[in-house]
């Protein structure tokens, strides 16, 4: 390929540039078509199994390329040679690029090439998959174009250690990408910090014992109160019973009132919602003199922190008989149970449009889930092991036949607890509680890419 592209140099720099551009465009287009389709497929069938399988393929590819093993499997096909004789060179190079860009129609120089389609599907995201594809296209185009421009057609063939070094480099890049994606997938925003609330680039949270904070484009501002919430163009906080609703951009107070026992707030352009004791109440911002009950918890039940998007309030209701998430339209009073579990705990939902983010703690795992508000298939954005260990399932000295353990894979339990959530267009925010002495917990606020 280096020789074919390099041949254009004989017709002048302009012809070479045109040929190189055609080759690069073909590569980019081929990669876009294939990896775009893989991204769409991944969005449709996203699952943990796919992610694990892709990571396993990537790990095998890293080992293979780092150790310089023979690249397997291989597709025993080469681009049609006659195209360079029967077509204008830019057209032939464009078509060669198109074939090479797909990554799956010819010999591949490194095992890592097989990991890329797998990762493209596993990402479950078209943009991410396209980024992988374009990176692949760039990686294929650069050596060809650079060596063709320098007229070093036989360099790679004469110095195989160059290809060996390239494969080690590819393995290192793939490893780095995997590690970086894991780091980027769940990064700490602030600690100790919890109870997030987000609108666009504005993120508010509570620092225990200190107060509320608002972060805008990375600039952190302490608010004059606790339990801040952002929504619409507004921000709310409270200092004891004194509740303030202010403009989000200027922090200029718009409504100030006294609400006895107000603990957790949620705000939108039209409504202020708060939890106090065993009740969640709502108040129209146009008429602070009246408020209405949204829900009241019965004895031995717990109400979660309310979240508000437009006219819709969501909250969890947790009892020993089951737990559920309810959405209430505070404008017309309609309410709907959007999730229910008899043997798992559903906690602290947040809402953005038709998307619902919440925590599901079950016997064998704790999950941060994102799914359609009206129900359907949820995606797991973040996962921790379960909160309790299990025994062997049989008495000491007895046979294991007949035992029935709750989690067959025997996960190692954690004391960390998934807690409150917030949802933006790009990011899911999550509080993780770490138990300390005396039963108290310390929160850490993390961000998880929605993908």
């Amino acid at each position, binding site marked *: 390929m280096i020789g074919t592209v390099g041949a254009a140099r004989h017709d002048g720099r302009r012809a070479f540039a045109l040929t190189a551009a055609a080759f690069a465009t073909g590569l980019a287009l081929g990669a876009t078509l294939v990896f775009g389709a893989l991204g769409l497929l991944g969005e449709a069938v996203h699952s943990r199994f796919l992610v694990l399988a892709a990571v396993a393929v990537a790990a095998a590819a890293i080992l293979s390329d780092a150790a310089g093993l023979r690249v397997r499997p291989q597709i025993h096909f080469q681009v049609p040679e006659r195209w360079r004789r029967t077509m204008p060179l830019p057209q032939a190079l464009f078509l060669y690029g198109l074939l090479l860009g797909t990554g799956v129609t010819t010999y591949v120089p490194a095992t890592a090439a097989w990991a890329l389609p797998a990762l493209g599907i596993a990402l479950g995201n078209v943009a991410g998959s396209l980024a992988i594809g374009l990176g692949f296209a760039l990686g294929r185009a650069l050596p060809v174009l650079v060596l063709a421009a320098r007229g070093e057609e036989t360099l790679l063939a004469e110095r195989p250690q160059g290809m060996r070094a390239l494969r080690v480099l590819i393995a290192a890049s793939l490893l780095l990408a995997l590690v970086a994606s894991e780091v980027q997938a769940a990064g700490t925003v602030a600690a*100790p910090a*919890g*109870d997030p609330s987000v609108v666009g680039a504005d993120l508010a949270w*509570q620092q*225990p014992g200190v107060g509320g904070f608002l972060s805008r484009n990375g600039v952190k501002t302490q608010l004059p109160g606790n339990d801040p919430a952002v929504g619409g163009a507004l921000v709310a906080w409270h200092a004891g019973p004194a509740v303030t609703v202010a403009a989000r951009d200027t922090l200029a107070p718009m409504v100030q009132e006294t609400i006895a026992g107000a*603990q957790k707030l949620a705000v939108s352009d039209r409504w202020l919602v708060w939890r106090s004791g065993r009740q969640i109440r709502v108040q129209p911002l146009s008429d602070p003199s009246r408020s209405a009950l949204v829900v009241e918890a019965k004895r*031995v*039940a*717990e109400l*979660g922190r309310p979240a508000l998007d437009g006219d819709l309030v969501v909250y*969890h209701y*947790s*009892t*020993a*008989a*089951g*737990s559920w998430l309810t959405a209430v339209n505070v404008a017309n009073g309609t309410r709907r149970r959007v999730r229910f*579990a*008899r*043997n*798992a*705990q559903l*906690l602290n939902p947040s809402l953005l449009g038709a998307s619902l983010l919440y925590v599901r*703690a*079950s*016997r064998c795992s704790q999950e941060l889930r994102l799914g359609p508000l009206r129900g359907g298939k949820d995606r797991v954005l973040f996962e921790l092991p*379960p*909160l*309790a*260990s*299990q*025994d*062997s*399932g*049989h*008495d000491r*000295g*007895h*046979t*294991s*036949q*007949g*035992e*029935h*353990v*709750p989690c067959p894979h025997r996960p190692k339990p954690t004391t960390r*607890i998934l*807690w409150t959530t917030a949802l933006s267009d790009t990011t899911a925010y999550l509080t993780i*509680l770490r*138990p300390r002495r*005396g*039963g*108290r*917990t*310390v*929160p850490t606020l993390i961000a998880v890419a929605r993908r």
Partner: protein
Amino acid sequence: MPELSLTEAIAASTSRRGFLARAGRLLLGVTGGGFLAAALRAQKAEAYHFCGHIYTTGSCPHPVGLPRIDRNGFPLRAVDGKPVDDLGRPIDAVGRPVDARAELLRDPDGNPLPPAPRTRVCTAAGREFGFHPRIDGAWYRCCNGHVRKLVDCCGAVRDRINGDAALTGYCYSGRRVFCVMYYDTKIKC
């Protein structure tokens, strides 16, 4: 003639009575000990997966593993008898999660963390495997110095949790044993 012991009887037919009596004693001791050890091994090999259980029906699904229950059928942690919720966490009397020191877990505001569901073990088995659960009868055995009540979780089922044919056990009215649980009483034995 004085009554001979078994070892003496083994050696009685020989003239070197004293030596052979001792040798016979040794032989019987070795073979007897071996028999006892073999019997214990056989007992272990044939034993079921928890003390007091007979037959081969498997445990009911339980948040911790061993199917220990309280007198109302709710799950207890087998190792220490602490009540647990469906997530397997130790809880207080009203179902709120506690830490290893039995102190109530609280959120950063100091409020107790919410209770998780807690389901009777037989009820949970019925939900998971799709039958109407009933507890009909029970039997008792002495385990670890206390009377253990062994409880059948019954249902109108043909197959038990193991996947093969269910037995009648202590189930009535045509119901059969789907899985088994136990309740450790405080009565010494």
